[in-house]
């Protein structure tokens, strides 16, 4: 059966997949895919550059939220914010990495679910506060950390932010996703209540929270296995007392 749409633009998808599999620089892969797709759709050189340029202009807002907080974060980092965050969390001797990140996941998902998506983020919260706190909590329990462990903790801190944000914001009625869903279905001749869409998001959001919280919880046991030291809070108290004695 002959397709009634042109399949040539799929070349762009192939370029993306091949580029990432072959581990080319992502900037080159993306620009290559954009040029290949535009050529496959029959755009000339000027039309191709225009499509790239106007697309790039329209999406400037994406980078804004990353660039603007940098001066503040950099300035307080210069005054020891990350070191202070590490020292601060170590006052709570019972806190484990897993507990800390689960609390952050819960707070992030809960706040996103009521529309407060601005509370959090990688630049504002994860780099300056959450990742150093996770490292600090692990150091309090297991001593100095090998780089590999440090990197894994940072990645898990970033994952808690993403999972919390994604699965929280979609159950907020006024959020873009729910608006997009209801608008699209309306165009397709189906009318749904935004509230129903938001409510049907709750089971998945709950599953995502439970799965990710369980994985964050398992970090504690993995750290204890790899680095020695004490996995549970009671053992840690004993260890602290022994150290003090």
């Amino acid at each position, binding site marked *: 059966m002959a397709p009634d749409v042109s399949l*040539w633009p799929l070349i762009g998808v192939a370029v993306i997949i091949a580029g990432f599999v072959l581990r080319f620089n992502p900037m080159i892969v993306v620009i290559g895919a954009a040029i290949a797709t535009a050529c496959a759709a029959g755009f000339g050189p000027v039309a191709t*550059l225009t499509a790239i340029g106007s697309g790039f*202009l329209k999406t400037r807002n994406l980078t804004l939220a990353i660039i603007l*907080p940098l*001066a503040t974060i950099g*300035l307080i980092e*210069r005054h020891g914010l990350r070191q202070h965050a590490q020292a601060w969390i170590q006052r709570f001797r019972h806190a484990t990495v897993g507990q800390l990140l689960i609390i952050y996941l819960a707070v992030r998902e809960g706040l996103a679910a009521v529309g407060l998506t601005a509370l959090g983020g990688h630049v504002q919260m994860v780099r300056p506060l959450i990742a150093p706190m996770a490292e600090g909590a692990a150091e309090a329990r297991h001593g100095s950390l090998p780089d590999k462990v440090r990197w894994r903790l940072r990645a898990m801190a970033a994952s808690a932010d993403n999972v919390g944000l994604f*699965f929280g914001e979609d159950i907020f009625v006024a959020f873009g*996703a729910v608006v*997009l869903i209801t608008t699209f279905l309306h165009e397709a001749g189906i009318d749904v209540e935004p509230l129903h869409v938001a409510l049907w998001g709750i089971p998945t959001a709950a599953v995502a929270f439970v799965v990710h919280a369980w994985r964050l919880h398992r970090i504690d046991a993995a750290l204890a296995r790899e680095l020695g030291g004490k996995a549970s809070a009671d053992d840690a108290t004993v260890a602290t007392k022994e150290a003090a004695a």
Partner: protein
Amino acid sequence: MNNAIFSLAHLYVLAGLVLAFVAVTTALDRNHPRRFGSAFFWGFYALVFLAGDLLPPAWIGAGVVAMAVIAGLRRVAPGPHETPALADYVARAQRLGNKLFLPALAIPGVAVVATLLAKQANFGGVGLLDKGNPTLAAVGMASVVALALACWLARETPAQGLREARRLVDAMGWALVLPQMLAMLGLVFSDAGVGKAVAWVTTHYIAMDVRFVAVAVYVLGMALFTVIMGNGFAAFPVMTGGVGVPVLVGMFHANPASMAAIGMFSGYCGTLMTPMAANFNIVPAALLELPDKNAVIRAQWPTAVSVLVVNVFLLYFLLPRP
């Protein structure tokens, strides 16, 4: 009307000035290992923010291609930054103590308060936040307030703030620009009709009359297409228009609200697994100085796959029995 103190146009200028500072200081830095490549990269990017609307889009396109090539040839690198010794950091941290948290928490705090108050705020016909995107404008405004607070607490100048911003921009490198490149690619894809082609392929080569297959194609297709596009919003119209509405609702009488909600979340599972969602996955890896750019994806994929499997069965059991 977008007549506001913190309008996106004003914030673009602000971001452009930060980038221009990075470009100029890089160009003047004789000890920079990749002086001219880096200076052009950040300089052109600054121009896009400062004067993007005044230039012909084709010129911008040509500059973007040049930026990608420079980045691909590894001509973008961090400059030499003097970092204080760890002991200095610890000593400074003791001076300010918990006050250090205030500017960091002021960014989200001021952003939320500004969003809530923006509707009432009016300065002689000029609003506080951009009406088109109040959340983003609020983050911009909060950044300015927090910078002032940080300068006051630490007795620093905004110029030092700019130098610190340059240090962080350098640490991220071209990864900072990648989210915008990918969003641009998404727009080029939709102009070129990639979505239609994908929908045609999935609906013509897979046995969509089997309930479980249809559900799995919709859920996994949302995830897969999001992995390719980097954005669930781009995948949703394609998969829901191609499979969801005609097959799941039309043939199997799915509840449209539950189908759409589960479908969108399946897209988000894809977002957790793709380098194409650079601002969530690649930028944080750069920001946290992780050597493996895919470290955040590695931390997330088991969660994403588990949720996807649950979504397939959830949507399947929610279909009305025949």
